[in-house]
């Protein structure tokens, strides 16, 4: 069953793959039907291409400029391609800042937050979707209701709480507040709703306990949703900025965005080359992960509509 899901997943979650133009049911996509579909496709490509250039040019420019010397970055008029590509900016960045430490901090926090969310959200999402019990509606409303609460409402009470627990400037302080996110419950519930009741009932009739059904029947079916939630949560945590900025008070607990932010507003504000190199170091790993796993993001958005 799980193998079956695996093989079909790629074409069911994405917009359907275009059939070859000579296939009979592909007719409406071809130029020949006359339903106004003979619209010049080059125009569509032109519009999309221009848009794509506008949207991605900041990234391209960032990558290219991080290879320029400080002098060339300040040059008027600005150049696109580095005249003398150099890795000096990166070398200096790694000399001055403890990047391995920031990287480790970001990774530890993001992995812990992701694992926690996967376990807790899928458990609650499962019972909200597939079980009837006293208090279910109340639970669901409580969890969904907080999706709309602005982060500003909880920021300071949360900080006071974490401070009272003695968790300021600790990994626990960075991780615990994000372990149970309503978004994950919503996503997992939406996915579990689509699992046929018959499967679960069959397992119940066979005498399996709820825990066993969850681990052996439901979780294997939910691999796509778990992958989606995992990646979205991981990158959300990796990019999270405000909370680590407030909670991490010494350099050994800084995450990458915090380090870059403090660096870019502190005494190095005008070391443009270094800042751009820092931005590349923060962005590129994320973009690589995203490019490899992009279909899961698409699925997550299509399932819940929330990034």
């Amino acid at each position, binding site marked *: 069953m799980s193998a*079956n*899901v695996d093989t079909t*997943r790629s074409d*069911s979650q994405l917009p359907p793959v275009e059939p070859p133009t000579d296939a009979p049911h592909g007719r*409406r996509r071809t130029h020949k039907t006359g339903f*106004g579909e003979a619209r010049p496709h080059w125009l*569509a*490509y032109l*519009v999309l291409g221009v848009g*794509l250039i506008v*949207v*991605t*040019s900041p990234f391209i*420019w*960032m990558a290219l400029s991080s290879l320029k010397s400080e002098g060339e970055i300040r040059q*008027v*008029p*600005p150049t696109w391609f580095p005249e003398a590509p150099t890795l000096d900016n990166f070398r200096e960045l790694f000399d001055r800042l403890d990047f391995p430490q920031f990287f480790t901090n970001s990774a530890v926090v993001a992995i812990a937050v992701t694992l926690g969310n996967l376990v807790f959200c899928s*458990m*609650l999402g*499962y*019972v*909200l979707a597939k*079980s*009837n*019990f*006293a*208090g279910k509606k109340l*639970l669901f409303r*409580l969890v969904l209701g*907080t999706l709309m609460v*602005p982060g*500003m*409402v909880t920021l*300071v*009470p*949360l900080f006071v*709480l974490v401070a009272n627990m003695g968790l300021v400037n600790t990994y626990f302080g960075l991780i*615990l507040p994000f372990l*149970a996110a309503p978004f994950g419950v919503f996503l997992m519930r939406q996915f579990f709703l*689509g*699992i*046929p*009741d018959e499967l679960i009932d069959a397992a119940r009739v066979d005498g399996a*306990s*709820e825990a066993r059904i969850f681990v052996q029947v439901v979780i294997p079916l939910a691999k796509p949703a778990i992958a989606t939630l995992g990646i979205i949560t991981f990158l959300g945590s990796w990019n999270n900025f*405000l909370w680590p900025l407030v909670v991490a008070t010494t350099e050994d607990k800084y995450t990458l965005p915090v380090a870059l932010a403090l660096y*870019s507003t502190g005494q190095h504000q005008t070391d443009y080359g270094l800042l751009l190199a*820092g931005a590349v170091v*923060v*962005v590129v790993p994320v*973009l690589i992960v*995203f*490019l490899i796993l992009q279909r899961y*993001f*698409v699925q997550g*958005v299509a*399932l*819940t*509509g929330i990034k």
Partner: protein
Amino acid sequence: MSAQTAVRPGEQVPPSRTDPYAIRKRPPLYRRRTRAAWGFALPFMILFLVFTVGPVLLSLAMAVTDLRSRDLRNPFAVEFVGLDNFIAVFADPIFRKAAANTAYFVLVGVPLTLCLALAIAVVLNSGITRAKTLFRVGYYMPVVTSIVAVAVVWRFLLHPDVGLINEVLGWVGIDGPNWLASTTWAMPSMIAMATWRSIGTLIIIFLAGLQSVPTALHEAAALDGAGVWQRFRHITVPTLRPTLLFGAVITGIGYVQFFEEPFVMTQGGPLNSTLSVAYHTYNQFGFGNYGYAAAMSYVLFFFVVLLALVQFRLLGDRDTPRRRRRKPTPVARQEIGR
């Protein structure tokens, strides 16, 4: 509890001979299932109550007191002040300025983002076959990028002398302003950034919605002589209404809380021209005016809810909320069913 037991859907016991038996039998099963379900819910709920619900309530409690940061060591000195904080918020000229800025940002930013995303999604869906993934991935890239890195890059792009944007404007003979230092242009720069960052999510939502627009309708309308624009206006938009509403609501919720862009780009300046309500709240927390800031954060919460309601009124019809929630189900079902 017994009432709920009776209406439980999808679990009918054969009615004929088992009725009295079932009545005896069901409650224990239901109780057992409730116990199991709460066991599943418990880990999440403990963390959720402590780290989310708790702070929300605590914040509300703060909002009706005169709590300041120095009172934390001596909580008994704090006094209940009722709605005084809320009155003070609305009397605060900086708050009014921030509210006007936020309204500007939302009223321009949300329609702009929606229209651009819809246009791109429609073109992407218009039957092009090649490079679809490339486009989708390209437009989504800003969504997964850290705001801090975005800020570094955009500060350069918007730089008056060495910035790419003014350079490009120079090609067509426009002398670009000093974007971030101008009280007129700082806010449009923020809107452009926010649009750039949000458009990818909306494109994917709209693409998913566009899949559900029946092609038969388009074909019939085309046979009757409807043009591309007419079909967009009278077929695509009405069918897409729930999706549009959903997109508008999530974009609106995000934009009302507008904070990160000015925080990393302008620190609310110049002359408070990019100070948002969320940013003002953050500053007040920073100054230690906890009660006052908490009240303001609830005002912000109120506006989030208000905006969502207004959008439901404008774009929705009565059954939209339900359709919105159900919509994702078929996607998941297909996936399992195959």
